């Protein structure tokens, strides 16, 4: 599948929600933990060799599960392959929890559900749709319930 490296590279240079040096292990059998600079930008998790300016890779964080593993460790797996895990070992348990929280909120789908929730709550309280003033009430992505196209 074609994708633009330039777009990804540009994105990886944006200010990050979160960045840290963390030990990372790829899902491949026999992989070892390697120190990586891990950077969360929008719904992508980029990982760099610690002395390099360009990422080695990126993970799109949609339809994924962030799992707590043993102490200081969390993993990312994707719903179509739940046993294939990217493992991350943090310095402390606190750091581990912070990353888990941040990554769970990092998907577009999570934000969409939040938006729909808030929209609904505000509408219930005020009787008005808060999205109307932005002219986006009819946008498919903001609708409650199934969106069929």
């Amino acid at each position, binding site marked *: 599948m074609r994708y633009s490296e330039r777009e*990804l590279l540009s994105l990886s240079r944006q200010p990050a929600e979160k960045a840290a040096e963390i030990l990372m292990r790829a899902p491949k059998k026999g992989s070892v933990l390697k120190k990586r600079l891990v950077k969360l930008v929008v719904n992508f998790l980029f990982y760099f060799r610690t002395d390099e300016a360009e990422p080695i890779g990126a993970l799109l964080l949609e*339809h994924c599960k962030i799992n707590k593993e043993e102490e200081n460790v969390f993993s990312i797996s*994707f719903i*179509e392959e739940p046993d294939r895990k990217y493992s991350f070992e943090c310095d402390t348990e606190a750091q581990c929890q912070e990353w888990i929280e941040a990554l769970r909120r990092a998907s577009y789908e999570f934000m969409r559900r939040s938006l729909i*929730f808030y929209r609904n709550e505000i509408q219930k*309280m005020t*009787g008005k749709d808060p999205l109307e003033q932005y002219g986006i009430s009819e*946008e498919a*992505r903001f609708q409650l319930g199934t969106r069929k196209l």
Partner: protein
Amino acid sequence: MKLNERSLVCYATCDSPADNAGFLSKKGERNTAYHRRWFVLKGNMLFYFEERESREPVGVIILEGCTVELCEAAEEFAFAIKFDCAKARTYVLAAESQAAMESWVKSLSRASFDYMRLVVKELEKQLEEMQRGLAGSRSVQRRSPIYRKTKPALCNGCAVWNNAPCVDTLPAGDGPGGLADSGSGKPPVCPGTVCFSKLHDWYGREITELRREWQESHKL
């Protein structure tokens, strides 16, 4: 740069609803010929397939940091997705009707994660202000005859609403921002019942009254 392509393909082809879908003609990068492709927009990812039934996308365009504009082109109903970064590619697409073009331009220009985040933050702020407003009016409130002794419980009014059976609750994990923090603890035992809908109604009467007064005072 590696990308979790398999997951992306699954995301593109799975059942989750798309934000927009339809045929568009895409101008080639080197070759100026247009190719008709089936496009599917999910979140900030614009996938394109050779055919509607294709099992895997030909490619994907990541919609962050881009602008969408109408453009002059050989094809009618053309628009372009332009990126800010150096030597970035501009994608020229053509829809099959004026209406389709407008629909695509609208949905693509609002497709970025950044945009979604802005709107969510704005609504979150609005909701928090309203809830604080309610709390404020509660403490000042003296006149309403129906106002009972349950002041602390009404701080949890929002928690009660959060669990209203008719609406989606906050996504699991954590609530974005303040909502998860407001209203900890449980409401006092509801007079004479443990049935949620009765509890809901009981609080609901007070909330309705407060809401009405709040609305009036804020002249919405």
